[in-house]
């Protein structure tokens, strides 16, 4: 018989140690699974977590991989802090890409200084509008935001599929579902280090992502809106007592996370792809959920968490090449990691007592 007894005090050490323990356990369980399936576990772990970052340019590429995750997770943190369950960031990302793509393709002769801000704005707007659907349905009709945001992800994926095969398809694409390439002004450029040159694919979007995470932290930790979000998550009744409206907070956090996901879509396309295509995201919207949890809903920690999860993604590529593992094996790590983090949450809030049936019986007769 397992029973959960709430902890009276929440120790700081436990809070910090939870992700560390979760990562360690994930590695152990992952190694066991690899060994069971006949792979050399040490070799596998090496390929996963060391090989992808053994050169400076590879480390730079790790940041590139983490970039959309950090952006999306910085927004999701607001939602989950307020107990609003947006799991449709993937769809919001796609709409952000489509909106910014509209700007890039329609006003293709804009100069760079006007193009970039406009595209960021359009991306944010696209994601925000898409997130407003679950937000308004929730506040207006009390509709479950989990299911709505999830359904909308599929609608969004079908929408971009249509748009790149239909109206926006480049006539010169030989029938491939691709739009025209963006003009240079609409592309995010790589960072050129004086004396070194380019480092991998490191682009200015990464800098933006780090600043965004920092900004999210400032808002959440230092500003009144962040306070409102946290109060609503901790104690909605106290939130109403303080005078904030639950509906306002719901709309706000979905708006923030939608806009962030939209910007991530814009950055991903402008920095790495250069045109719209049916698949612009490799499940970043879902993976970012793990990042947000790994960061324990702290935007600053999102940076580190994004890098860890991105490492698992790159590790998948490396293991595929070196060991012939399928790329999806990354999911094994991501899944276990999320399980461990969630269990860690429980151990943070509760003492888990395991009573033997014998002692329970003795208690009954004794009572």
């Amino acid at each position, binding site marked *: 018989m397992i029973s*959960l007894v709430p902890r009276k005090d929440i120790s700081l050490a436990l809070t910090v140690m939870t992700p560390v323990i979760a990562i360690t356990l994930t590695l152990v369980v992952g190694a066991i699974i690899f060994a069971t399936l006949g792979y050399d576990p040490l070799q596998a772990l090496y390929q996963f977590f060391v090989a992808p970052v053994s050169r400076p340019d590879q480390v730079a590429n790790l940041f590139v991989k983490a970039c959309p995750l950090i952006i999306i997770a910085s927004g999701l943190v607001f939602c989950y802090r307020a107990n609003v369950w947006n799991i449709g960031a993937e769809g919001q990302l796609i709409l952000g890409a489509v909106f910014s793509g509209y700007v890039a393709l329609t006003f293709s002769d804009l100069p760079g200084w006007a193009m970039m801000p406009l595209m960021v704005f359009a991306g944010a707007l696209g994601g925000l509008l898409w997130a407003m659907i679950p937000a308004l349905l929730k506040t207006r009709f009390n509709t479950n935001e989990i*299911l709505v945001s*999830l359904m*909308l992800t599929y609608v969004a994926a079908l929408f971009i*599929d249509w748009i790149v095969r239909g109206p926006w398809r480049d006539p010169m694409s030989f029938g491939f579902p691709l739009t025209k390439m963006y003009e240079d002004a609409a592309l995010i450029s790589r960072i050129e280090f004086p004396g070194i040159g380019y480092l991998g694919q490191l682009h200015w979007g990464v800098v933006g992502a780090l600043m965004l995470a920092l900004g999210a932290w400032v808002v959440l930790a230092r500003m009144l809106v962040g306070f409102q979000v946290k109060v609503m998550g901790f104690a909605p009744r106290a939130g109403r007592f303080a005078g904030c409206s639950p509906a306002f907070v719901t709309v706000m956090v979905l708006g923030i996370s939608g806009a962030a996901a939209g910007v991530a879509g814009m950055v991903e396309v402008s920095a790495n792809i250069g045109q719209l295509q049916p698949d612009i995201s490799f499940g970043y919207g879902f993976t970012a959920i*793990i990042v947000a949890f790994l960061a324990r809903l702290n935007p600053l920690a999102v940076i580190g968490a994004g890098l860890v999860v991105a490492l698992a993604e790159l590790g998948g590529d490396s293991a595929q090449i070196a060991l012939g593992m399928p790329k*999806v094996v990354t*999911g094994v790590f991501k899944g276990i990691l999320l399980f461990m983090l969630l269990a860690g*949450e429980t151990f943070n809030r*509760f003492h888990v007592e395991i009573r033997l049936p014998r002692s329970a019986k003795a208690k009954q007769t004794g009572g």
Partner: protein
Amino acid sequence: MEQLILTVILTSVPLIFAASGELIAERSGVLNLGVEGMMLMGAVFAFAVAMGTGSPVLGMFAGAFAGAITAGIFAFFALGLATNQVATGLALTIFGTGLSGLIGAPLVGQAIDGLPQINIPLLAEIPFFGIVMFQHDIMFYIAVIMVGLCAWVLNATRIGLIIRAVGDNHDSAHALGYSVLGVRLLAVIFGGMMAGLGGAYLPLVLTPHWAEGMTAGRGWIALALVVFASWRPWRVLGGAFVFGGITIMQLAGQARGWTIPSQFLSMLPYLATIIVLVLISRNREFALANSPACLGRIFHTEK
């Protein structure tokens, strides 16, 4: 025409399995978003066992077993450790997708014999109806029987009553002495078994191969289907045909050069699900009558 309807039915079977299993779990108050992962685990184990033993029927059992075990992981975390159901379900899908790919890697490119078609004597002779309804593989019949079974158990048996009670108000059920977590554990495991069967149908009947991620989002459609059916088993059957029909319609439509882009047809099930959700939730009384009130809520006895 018969061929078209037959195709629709074939496409629907995995959805019928997965959705009716998830329906039972949700009726008990558990939202398990891990359907896709459980289906994939069912699919890969079904394929592997069918290939190893040469028996697709054994493969079917293996698929059900693998789905149930995968659901057990979810139950351990979401019920045993009271973790957030949404995130745990998501973790299960990610994990199941990855692990099935890893297990199935050596199996890619292999082929198996699928389940044979079973014609029901006499009934199969009926023109049109016989072909559509009574000339199928064993799993089709099982799927229809399972829907009927779910409906009967839920609405006409004490076990079903207890499942509904636990999903409606877990505190009251606990106060009456029912084991909330026990009931939910069984419902989740059953849901996993059914998802495993749904996954197993893919390599055993639809395409006799294993391919990474071969469910292609069917687990998520099954989740939508449960809501679309407003948590009633027979409606799952109808809804699965609608969802399957739309899939086939786009293919047929493309062949005939319809002007409506196929993507918009594909959106219909998701949009319909959202509309159903709004209709259900806009009225409190209606929501109470049509959706499990405790869905996704964590139960533990200490207040």
